[in-house]
């Protein structure tokens, strides 16, 4: 096994072999979810701190379950109701937590670069659970695991990411990770929601939904945040969902084995029509299940061993 990193901060610097290691480990660990006793002793006595500055029940719960199934002690530290409210700096909070000797700190923060800052200052491993619009590596890993599971392979597939790519850390991590694994990535959305220089990331850019998804093996729909109407990115949610929302009718000309994915939570009726979210094309719930497996794998790789 090749995992040598202290931290998991993003997909951009991971080698294909490292990504494969995580996916293989996650695949092996997935069966724990189907056991009657969902526990293995692997991380017994290890302490994992979830340091979530942005509220996120889903991701935090996923990490919590992953840690607990591995017998670790998981502590949740959410910024509301903590010293962060009293204006304690990020570094001071982290140093205080480190003084309590955790083995891994999982951090989500609205500022890009915050996990990198923590990783430089903390001795324990740091997992990026989402930093600003930068990266969300465990999401990309679970997306890759889901695609590999359903399609049997990754290289050569066509994936189209639709929506607010400019503000999405999921999109960035997916782009970095998918390209590393040999997937051809297309991003699609109105020009205001596609970031500057996006093509230089090695992706195709499309401003027409139908054309972008026509030959896709996987369609990844991103969540549209309602704040995007401010700042003039889109005129209205209504127009966005009409033009960019995915409906069964728009899916009709697509490949019959196309997968519909979404990092969640889904804005039903905005980016995904309810019938599509619940259709046979959707693997959204598989993503959630794989999320726990991937996070178990990540925690195992980072927390389990003696670090030099």
């Amino acid at each position, binding site marked *: *096994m090749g995992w040598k990193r202290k931290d998991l901060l993003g997909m951009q610097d991971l080698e294909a072999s490292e990504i494969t290691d995580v996916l293989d*480990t996650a695949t092996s660990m997935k069966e724990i979810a189907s056991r009657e006793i969902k526990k*293995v*002793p692997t991380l017994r006595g290890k302490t994992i701190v979830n340091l979530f500055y942005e509220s996120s029940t889903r991701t935090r719960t996923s990490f919590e379950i992953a840690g607990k199934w591995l017998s670790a002690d998981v502590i949740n530290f959410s910024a509301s109701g903590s010293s962060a409210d009293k204006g304690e700096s990020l570094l001071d909070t982290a140093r205080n937590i480190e003084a309590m000797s955790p083995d891994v700190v999982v951090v989500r923060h609205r500022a890009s670069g915050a996990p990198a800052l923590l990783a430089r200052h903390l001795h324990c491993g740091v997992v990026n659970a989402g930093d600003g619009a930068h990266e969300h590596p465990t999401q990309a890993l679970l997306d890759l695991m889901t695609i590999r599971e359903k399609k049997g392979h990754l290289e050569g597939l066509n994936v189209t990411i639709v929506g607010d790519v400019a503000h999405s850390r999921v999109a960035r991590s997916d782009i970095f990770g998918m390209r590393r694994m040999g997937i051809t990535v297309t991003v699609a959305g109105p020009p205001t929601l596609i970031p500057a220089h996006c093509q230089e990331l090695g992706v195709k850019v499309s401003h027409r939904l139908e054309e972008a998804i026509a030959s896709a093996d996987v369609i990844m729909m991103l969540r549209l945040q309602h704040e995007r109407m401010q700042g003039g990115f889109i005129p209205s949610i209504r127009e966005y969902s009409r033009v960019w929302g995915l409906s069964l009718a728009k899916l009709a000309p697509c490949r019959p084995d196309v997968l519909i994915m979404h990092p969640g939570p889904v804005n039903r009726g905005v980016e995904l029509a309810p019938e599509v979210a619940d259709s046979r094309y959707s693997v959204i719930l598989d993503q959630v299940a794989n999320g726990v497996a991937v996070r178990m794998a990540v925690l*195992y790789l980072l927390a389990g*061993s003696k670090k030099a």
Partner: protein
Amino acid sequence: MSTREKAQVLDETGLDRALTRIAHEIVEQAGGGEDVALVGIKTRGVTLAERIAAKIAGIEGTKPSVGALDITLYRDDLRLKAEQPVVRSTEIGFPIKGRTVVLVDDVLFTGRTIRAAMDALMDLGRPRIIRLAVLVDRGHRELPIRPDYIGKNLPTSRRETVAVLLREHDGMDRVVIREE
């Protein structure tokens, strides 16, 4: 660390005979009334379990269930390692509760692998009885673990290693002792 082969302990025929005898012993102890299942410990234990199951099919007419167990998550030495060992998947496609489970491994040494395997089995269900079949018992137990079915007893020194080579993995069937 380079190893050199010191001696061959079992050749292809000897290995096959050992497995045949183990199969007979399992059948005899089961007495026709028990519902025996074989669970091989990854990786070579699984191959041996498959072969024993095939032999039992030849004797009794029906092949017992065979499962594969990965014990990495239950190891007691993870803390001591610099890198995490590879986790492989556990595939046991039958219920364990109330059954007689025979764990199968290639070499029994300190007993820690078997301890981990028993913990893993317990988390998967509650077997009625757990028995242990090993192709080679090389001594040097560190835990109170003893096998029920033994292919060959092989006293060794700590500096030696015992390698079980199997057709399916290594292209040939033999058991050898190696030394540094």
